[in-house]
């Protein structure tokens, strides 16, 4: 074994090395801050997240320093490799964590794995640098120089991070920018080294990592969009893809929100407005709502309202997605929202495609609540067609009343009134109404019955939104939401999906 030749760095190399202490120290702290911020953002409870991430990170640095004793050979080229690796891991860390969060089953494992890996690498840096520089400086000077640059770097990082980086660049871009800083140290060292000690593979690896970081920087915008976590304004507490949809639950200070395929379904703050408006104008008009059919509404919130009516003997709830009804039945926090409606013996849940279910279904229902996601796709659009309403009408008892969630009459007035036109084409009489739900805006429903729509008989006491005095106001439409002529939505024209896309398009950008 040949002993490695001790480094005799030229002046420029020494200077670059000291400068690199500053850079790597800054980068190291930035990665730590990124991980801590991300963890508290994604997992909530910032004090715990920050202190465990920082603890894990410092511990891993200790491990790295300890491991440095086993590093033998050409210290400078090993240092370069460590830099390349840190640049890759640290640079991509924020993007990777965002992207991974909804995908992996145990996010903590991914988070701490990454924190430990980066920490250990960063822990290697300073001992290696000290060894490289030991021939250039006296020991006293060396320790002073290195630690000074190290702490200055920490200060730079901790000031830049909250004041400039997060607000200006965002977490994902910040990661890439500092990855690039890391990699430029590696490249600078490789270029200064005499040709004989330069390893072509190292240079190639460094250039590849540079390219990936630059690409990441430019794609950050898109990564942000892919990473749905960044898409939601609130911390995500649950995310899952079922065969039918992407379910995401978020929570911010007690407000739980459900998104299906990125579309808000409810906010626990104001859903009572939506669900009271969905249910009570109907139940308040039916003489004896013994049998109630709910199509959609797998969150159980409409069922909760319906169950408050003691006259109701049975609620038949048809929702496509078993995962949805299971989640809202078995998760304590969510079941609390719907008052454990889905576990009630008065509720029977059918997980089926409502389009097929109504075709086979027999029986008569005194009230039908149709609460489907907005007609954003042709498949969903079928649930708003004349044909579908004819099938539902067949299930609606004489004297029964139904209602249909009908999107926003303010943003999409043509779409909103298309529902009424279509219900009428199916032989029913229809009447639009609307309510203000802060998290949705102005929202619309369409009531329908076989004959004339009966007057409101009564509302139960204790509703938070509707009273017999305020209910009639729901039916008043100012000119910007007023009824207008629309086509009938049919299976073979899907007029609603088309007008919905036109009317909502400008709002979604």
């Amino acid at each position, binding site marked *: 074994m040949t002993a490695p030749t001790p480094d005799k760095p030229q002046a420029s190399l020494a200077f670059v090395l000291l400068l690199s202490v500053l850079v790597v120290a800054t980068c190291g702290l930035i990665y730590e801050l990124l991980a801590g911020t991300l963890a508290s953002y994604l997992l909530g409870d910032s004090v715990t997240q920050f202190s465990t991430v920082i603890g894990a990170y410092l511990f891993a640095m200790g491990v790295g320093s300890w491991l440095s004793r086993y590093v033998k050979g050409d210290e400078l080229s090993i240092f370069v490799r460590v830099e390349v690796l840190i640049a890759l891991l640290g640079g991509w860390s924020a993007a990777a964590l965002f992207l991974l969060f909804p995908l992996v089953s145990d996010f903590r494992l991914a988070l701490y794995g990454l924190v430990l890996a980066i920490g250990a690498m960063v822990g290697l840096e300073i001992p290696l640098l000290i060894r490289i520089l030991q021939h250039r400086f006296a020991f006293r000077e060396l320790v002073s120089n290195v630690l000074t640059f190290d702490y200055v770097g920490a200060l730079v990082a901790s000031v830049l991070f909250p004041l400039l980086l997060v607000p200006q660049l965002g977490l994902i871009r910040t990661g890439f920018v500092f990855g690039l800083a890391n990699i430029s140290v590696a490249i600078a060292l490789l270029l200064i080294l005499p040709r004989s000690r330069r390893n072509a593979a190292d240079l190639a690896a460094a250039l590849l990592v540079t390219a990936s970081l630059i690409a990441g920087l430019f794609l950050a915008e898109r990564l942000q969009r892919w990473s749905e976590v960044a898409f939601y304004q609130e911390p995500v507490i649950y995310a899952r893809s079922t*065969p*039918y*949809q992407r379910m995401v639950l978020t929570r911010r200070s007690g407000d739980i929100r459900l998104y299906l395929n990125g579309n808000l379904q409810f906010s626990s703050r104001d859903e009572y407005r939506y669900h009271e408006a969905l249910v009570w104008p109907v139940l308040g008009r039916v003489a004896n709502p013994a049998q109630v059919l709910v199509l959609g509404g797998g969150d159980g919130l409409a069922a909760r309202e319906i169950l408050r009516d003691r006259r109701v003997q049975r609620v038949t709830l048809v929702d*496509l997605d078993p995962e949805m009804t299971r989640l809202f039945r078995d998760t304590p926090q969510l079941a609390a929202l719907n008052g454990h409606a889905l576990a009630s013996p008065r509720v029977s849940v059918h997980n089926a*495609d*409502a*389009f*097929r279910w109504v075709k086979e279904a027999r029986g008569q229902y005194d009230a039908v609540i149709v609460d489907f996601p907005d007609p954003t*796709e*042709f*498949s*969903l*659009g*079928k*649930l708003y*067609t*004349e*044909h579908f309403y004819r099938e539902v009408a067949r299930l609606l008892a004489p004297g029964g009343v139904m209602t249909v969630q009908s999107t926003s009459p303010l943003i999409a007035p043509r779409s909103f009134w298309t529902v009424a036109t279509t219900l009428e084409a199916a032989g029913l009489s229809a009447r639009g109404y609307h309510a203000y739900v802060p998290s949705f805006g102005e929202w619309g429903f369409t009531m329908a019955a076989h004959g004339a729509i009966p007057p409101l008989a009564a509302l139960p006491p204790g509703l938070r939104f509707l009273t017999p005095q305020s209910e009639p106001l729901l039916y008043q439409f100012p000119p910007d939401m007023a009824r207008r002529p629309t086509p009938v939505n*049919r*299976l*073979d*024209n*899907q007029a609603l*999906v088309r007008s919905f896309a036109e009317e909502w398009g400008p709002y979604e950008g």
Partner: protein
Amino acid sequence: MKADRRGVLAGGSALAAAALLPPGCASSPPFPGALSGPDMARGHRLRDGRFPAPDGPAEERVGIAIAGGGIAGLAAGWRLLEAGFTDWVLYELEDEAGGNARSGRNAVSAYPLGAHYLPVPNREARALHQMLDQFGMVTGRDAAGAPRFDPTQLCADLEERLLWRGKWQEGLYPAAGLSADDQRQRDRFFAEMAHFRTLTGADGRPAFASPMAYSSRDPALIALDRQSFAAWLAQQGYTSPPLLAHLRYASRDDYGSELDAISAWAGLHYFAARRGWAADGQGDSELTWPEGNGRLAALLRNSVKGHIRTASPVFAARADGAGAVLDRWDQQAGRAIRTRADLAVLAMPHFVARRIAPALGAAPAFSYSPWVVANVTVNRLPRGPGVPLAWDNVSAGSESLGYVVATHQTSSAGNGPSVLTWYLPLSRETPKAARELLQSRSLSEWQGIVRNDLLTMNPDLDGAIDRIDLWRWGHAMIRPTPGFLNDPARRAAQSLKPPLLLAHSDLSGLSLFEEAHYRGVAAAEAALRALGHSFTSLL
């Protein structure tokens, strides 16, 4: 300009051909599935004349014997029963009647094996309208008497999408990246077709009608039959590559043939004959079902129950005195049986009819394009950039015609398992070479081709394919080659006199449900007339 167009077409098809090459040995593992098609053993035995003649005199006597249970044969039987004539039997070679309109089924869905839709028929297709009404497909009528079709049996929106320049768009005509000249030519072409659609000939009949027998015989229009569609297009100055690619798609979709293999009359018929008669703007729509025209075949079979004898290839037919004699092979009994009928209707492809009834003459055979149909069972629905899944999904860059989705009408789930029916007419080669190709490829080779083509269109289907079943149609579609309208052999076949009559879409030269139905009804009415049975014509 010319070189340009050829460049684009050739470039596109080189790519397409590459996509359709069988994958190398190191390809993915083959999928479960079967390689099937019309019964080859019976077909070859027929071709080679290897059925023994029945011994002894005729064992059966019947008023009318129909040989062949495709749509034409079934429609003939349906027409006979409509007229109250019950003394008839239908012999079918296969184990099930339906012909090219047969269907399959698995745990996920029913699916077509061949024909998959029927455009809302024109008003002149009276017999067909009556049948659809009888089959419960009409839910009402508007003030003018136009039928209102059951919406669940019409193709649901979105009907068609095209993968064009990496993105799915609505409709089958490229919408983006057209030059000013492309747009001009497109607009000129469709304006010209709109003109032909309303044009009437000197004889007062529509220039192009469906069924085609109602079309004008005006010599100026018939003259269009003398040249190929490709030649006509060139003559009219249609050179736009996207336009020609679209027309090629149409020609392969309806006739299984290239633009230079079909007559201009047939090419124009595709675009100018449709005037669907229905209420509520349904006239432009198609009737379709998960099992495609298998639904119509099943309803027809059901309406003539008790008259069909399956697994009974007819291998000889001749006039005998005032009546007809048919020899058939009874697969179940394992012997030949002779039937004497007052009249026989041969409702089989013309190349078979000529073989079993030498009296029809040895005129040069009609020519047929071979097709491959794959039913691909997937555990989730395809997606892709741009507009979402449609019923019919076509890629501008592929040699296949894309796929239709069996569950398109029946589900609102937006996902879940389904069956995709994938179509490929082998139109590039001569029919003979194509049939050899059809036979030479193994199940796993075809599966590889289908898989590669599907994954090129929909990379998102990777891992979603559960099985691929192949169906080979050796003589799938009659080709309306230039001159077919006035082809003496076809004229002779159309005007055959009792006791032997013909009924098949081949007589129209257009392989379409409306044509098969018309030919069946026409033969039945000719038979009733010959037998002196009174009826009111539906034609």
